[in-house]
């Protein structure tokens, strides 16, 4: 599954999401917070693309915009070449069959007043499955697929463990047979012992159902294990994008290097003399400097300085500005 990039299934073009700040009835203030400023991404069929970055870098906002839960300020999101945004975009019902989301917190992602069966059956009914037996079969089938039993359907969410709930959340995301699954920190709220099970389940499902994943995460271990390509986001912009092996073996942007240096690595502890980020920082492409140069605390209200993504090796892009 980790061979060359297939044709794009989803395309994000110059996505901007700005939030007005302090804009109340009494105090009109024109300051805007630039959560996402100019993100371009593509997702290929059967691919797993990870968006990594620290809290507040805009990765979740990007995900919400793709899901239609957050109106983009500008830019376009295309599914198989068709725009999802604007008046010409598909309805909520059509969109439901394109992409679904798995949420971070399994304790808040299931309606506590609905049995699992009801949570799974209601979307089917809404999307036109009428006969009871058809619905029951589909619910039982999806529960088995995520490693639960059909009789679990009669239970309420609070009767399950965190890992089981996350399986139910995955079942709900899959019930309408979507093409894309948006994974928002799918395992970060789970016990370490359960994480591997959920990751393996996701990888199996990806293969069985030919799904494409967009994963939002700051757990680089999970990202390294699951992704085909990785996009590193920093304050609303992508600073580095490339195949997972290039990003992890050859991080180029100063921010990516810092991020990767945070991964706890047993080797560093056992052999403190061995430098983990082998070799010195690579220089920026000729005539350019990395952008942003210092990863401190950028002004989220300012218009970002002009910069572009430059290809340093095939498929591996780094954000630079003219020197």
């Amino acid at each position, binding site marked *: 599954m980790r061979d060359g990039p297939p044709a794009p299934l989803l395309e994000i073009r110059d996505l901007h999401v700005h939030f007005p700040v302090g804009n109340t009835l009494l105090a009109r203030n024109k300051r805007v917070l630039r959560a996402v400023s100019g993100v371009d991404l593509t997702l290929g069929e059967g691919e797993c693309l990870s968006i990594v970055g620290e809290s507040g870098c805009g990765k979740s906002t990007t995900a919400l915009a793709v899901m239609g*839960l957050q109106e983009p300020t500008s830019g376009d999101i295309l599914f198989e070449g068709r725009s999802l945004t604007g008046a010409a975009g598909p309805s*909520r019902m059509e969109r439901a069959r394109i992409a*679904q989301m798995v*949420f971070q*917190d399994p304790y808040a*992602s*299931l309606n506590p*007043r609905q049995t699992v069966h009801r949570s799974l059956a209601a979307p089917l009914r809404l999307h036109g499955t009428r006969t009871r037996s058809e619905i029951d079969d589909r619910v039982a089938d999806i529960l088995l697929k995520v490693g639960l039993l059909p009789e679990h359907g009669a239970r*309420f969410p609070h009767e399950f463990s965190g890992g089981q709930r996350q399986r139910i959340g995955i079942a709900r*995301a899959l019930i309408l047979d979507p093409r894309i699954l948006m994974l928002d920190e799918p395992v970060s709220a789970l016990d370490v012992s359960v994480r591997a099970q959920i990751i393996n389940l996701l990888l199996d499902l990806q293969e069985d159902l030919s799904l494409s994943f967009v994963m939002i995460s700051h757990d680089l271990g999970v990202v390294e294990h699951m992704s085909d390509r990785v996009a590193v986001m920093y304050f609303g912009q992508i600073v580095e994008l490339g195949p997972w092996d290039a990003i992890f073996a050859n991080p180029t942007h100063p921010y990516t290097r810092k991020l990767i240096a945070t991964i706890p690595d047993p080797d560093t502890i056992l052999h403190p003399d061995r430098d983990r980020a082998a070799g010195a920082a690579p220089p920026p492409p000729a005539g350019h400097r990395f952008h942003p140069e210092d990863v401190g605390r950028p002004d989220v209200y300012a218009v970002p300085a002009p910069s572009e993504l430059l290809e340093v090796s095939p498929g591996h892009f780094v954000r630079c500005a003219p020197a």
Partner: protein
Amino acid sequence: MRRFNLNLWLGGGLVLLVCVGAVFAPLLTSFDPVFDANLMYAEEPPDAQFWFGTDEQGRDVYTRVLYGARISLTVGIVSQIINSVIGLSLGISAAYWGGWWDDLVNGLTNTMLAVPSLIFALAIMAILGPGLPSLLIALGLTNWSWTCRIARSSTLSLKGQGYVLAARTLGYGDIRIMATQLLPNMVGPILVISTLGIGAAVLAEAALSFLGLGIRPPFPSWGSMLTGARELIVIAPWAAVFPGLAIFVTVLGFNLLGDGLRDLLDPHMRSRTA
């Protein structure tokens, strides 16, 4: 095993007692609440014949308390249903949609909270005139602000939850999300505020009737009975004590019932036995 729910049983018992009294009033007494006036028996203290004594016109207080329960319960429950419908639809939609609609609903709620609701109800009663229908309207339109507040704050905290977002991505319409995802998850606080509201409406009905704007004499309502008994408080205290006790028992019953129901409906309390 689940813990014995004292509030539920005690509150439910008191409410049931009042309901049975209201529904089966004609079977529980041999007198008529209005027409069995007999000045020969005026201001009799409680005895075997007149369990709660008689009032200044010789009417049986027990009979009038029973029939008064019909008015109080009707007013309390119907006006609270109107309040809940208004408060829930305004509160949930305001928080869910936000924007100018939220500002408008907030302004309206704050206005309602700033004006004492009884004064508001008095004004509506003065326009519509006394009687049961105008009582229902007056009390149904003036006591929704707390329900609205609670519905709004519950919605604000619920609408970012994964299951609400998931419902949106699964294609649910806004109204369906409000009805199936948001409303059921605020049942606890809404039930509590509604039972308090029934109690408050029973009290407000008594107050309005006491002021002569609610149920007109000679028809028995607990408030109008108190008005009539006011002048007798020294010589025939039972004429005031029993309607007052009836109000007390009803309000207490609904409040306890609300607390008990909240515990019962909490899904974390359900299937503890499993």
